[in-house]
């Protein structure tokens, strides 16, 4: 876990308007985070694999053309060029779609970047099924499993615009390689510019002790909606935003298990090796409790709209509510 981190907020960080939330793109948070960095850190350089506009690194390219490196359609080369730049003291951020960043250049990430523990910052755009019409090839849903299995890697899945922006800026200060996953579509804003963010430190988004919903990415919003629905039935769910999958906030997760006695995880990712797996690994070693996992069940995605896909693949708020009911039933039966 990061050494110099402020304490996680114990009260809800922001009381979001869940019914009509402000909508913003996480990729814009990445683009704006790079602009923040461009101004304050001359050692930050940005590489892209022919996807400037759709990863929003075009913002940086316009403002800092001398520190912007177009690599063309060559993700493997890009990963290693970034490593070479890091060896000269640069803080390189690279951007491409998560499907390519995590899978196509996985060996380059493992051998050249992670084994050397170089501060390469990987921006994985178009994460999750919410990418929509592009279909299965472009809907990255394996990044958490791949990245967190590689030593030295840090894996961050921010929940909204502000958190992506803050994660991007925070990654530059981290001496290790980082992977930041963000999406394409508009997603609800559930944090604010002043919400604390530290790599490796989970945020409590809503207090409760009947069960804990542990979520990352866009599923933090779905978890908050589910918690509100559960509250109307007298069930008080804690919502924990585990934006950093690695290093995992074992302390916050163990506390959630101990104080709530049941856990639901929620992620826009394959069920194998993702947030659910990571939390389960942590919980079985600290305080085992009944757990239910909301995730994509070992399937490739397909073309469609964001909402209809999330519904069809079982990762909307009602799915979280049903999982909560199952977890609570198991908790009561113990």
């Amino acid at each position, binding site marked *: 876990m990061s050494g110099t981190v402020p304490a996680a907020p114990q009260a809800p960080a922001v009381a979001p308007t869940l019914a009509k939330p402000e909508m913003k793109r996480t990729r814009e948070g990445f683009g704006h985070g790079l602009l923040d960095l461009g101004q304050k850190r001359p050692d930050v350089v940005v590489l892209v694999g022919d996807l400037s506009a759709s990863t929003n690194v075009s913002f940086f390219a316009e403002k800092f053309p001398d520190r912007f490196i177009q690599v063309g359609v*060559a993700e493997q080369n890009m990963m290693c060029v970034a490593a070479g730049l890091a060896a*000269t003291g640069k803080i390189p951020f690279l951007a491409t779609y998560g499907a390519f960043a995590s899978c196509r250049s996985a060996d*380059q990430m493992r051998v050249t970047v992670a084994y050397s523990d170089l501060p390469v910052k990987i921006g994985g755009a178009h994460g999750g099924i919410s990418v929509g019409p592009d279909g299965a090839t472009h809907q990255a849903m394996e990044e958490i499993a791949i990245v967190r299995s590689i030593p030295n890697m840090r894996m961050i899945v921010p929940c909204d615009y502000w958190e992506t922006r803050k994660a991007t800026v925070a990654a530059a200060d981290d001496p290790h390689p980082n992977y930041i996953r963000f999406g394409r579509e508009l997603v609800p804003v559930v944090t604010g510019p002043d919400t604390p963010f530290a790599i490796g430190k989970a945020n409590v988004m809503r207090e409760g002790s009947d069960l804990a919903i542990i979520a990352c990415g866009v599923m933090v919003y779905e978890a908050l909606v589910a918690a509100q629905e559960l509250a109307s039935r007298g069930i008080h769910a804690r919502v924990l935003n585990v934006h950093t999958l690695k290093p995992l906030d074992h302390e916050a997760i163990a506390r959630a298990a101990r104080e709530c006695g049941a856990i639901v995880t929620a992620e826009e990712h394959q069920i194998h090796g993702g947030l659910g797996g990571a939390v389960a690994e942590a919980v079985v070693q600290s305080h085992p409790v009944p757990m239910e996992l909301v995730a994509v069940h070992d399937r490739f995605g397909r073309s469609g709209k964001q909402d209809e896909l999330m519904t069809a693949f079982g990762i909307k708020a009602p799915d979280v509510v049903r999982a909560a009911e199952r977890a609570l039933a198991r908790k009561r039966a113990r």
Partner: protein
Amino acid sequence: MPRLGMTVPELQERALFVRRDIVALLARSQSGHSGGPLSTTDFGTVLFFHEMSVNPRRLDDPARDMWHFSIGHVTPVIYSLMGERGYFPLADLLGFRQFHGHLQGHPSKHDTPGIEVSSGSLGQGLSVACGMALGSRMDGLKRRVYCVTGDGEQQEGQIWEAAMFAAHYKLDNLCAVIDYNRKQIDGDVQDVMGIAPLADKWRSFNWNVIDVDGHEISAILDAFERARATRGKPSVVLAHTVMGKGVSYMEDDYKWHGIPPSREQADQALREMGTNLEEWTARLESHTQPEIAPAGVSS
């Protein structure tokens, strides 16, 4: 931090030392690659003892040239060059591939100070060198970057991604060297997966191509001078070499790509090189300080 600038006879002698080191360390480890390290030895020696400015006493010296072996499996020559150049005591070579040593089977940045970036998965290193060259140029440094690649490695697609990148960005501070020994682990390169015409391929990717006898020290010196003088494009030195060079029973035999000599075979090889296993191992053991070991010992 001036270059050492050794003379041709001095370089020939140091290359002989490096070859002896390679055989002696492999005899001890009984694990590792023989053929490629021995074909790489002569131009490697020119790089470390003449061409490159390196500073083993200050590894982050901003004035240093940078080097990267994309063929990570030739660690026997990498470590022997580093040991002879004073990065660490020569005695450490005898810990090659051992659990308690600091010399991993493939180069590891965090185990072996002086290794800039770990390597071992073929095809990746030229891209790394591109990043080093571009980053150095962005900082306005005069630094040159050298990348050693293999001929079998030319079969990796990423090599050509990097070739495109370096030419596109006109990285004339980058010099690649291909150890063109015509052998790879499964056999002759032309039988496994042909790469000819290799010089034409690199020329068509807009590189300055320099063919050279990779065992002729004076020709290698000249090749690096020509690369240094080239402006506006990266250079690649096609070093025509012989796998297992210097050991009679290994020369030009692909079966020696990935295996070490037995102790008896190593002793025979070292006798061909004017010493023997016991004597040369003792020389390594006696150098417990990181320094450029004096010449004239058993030479």
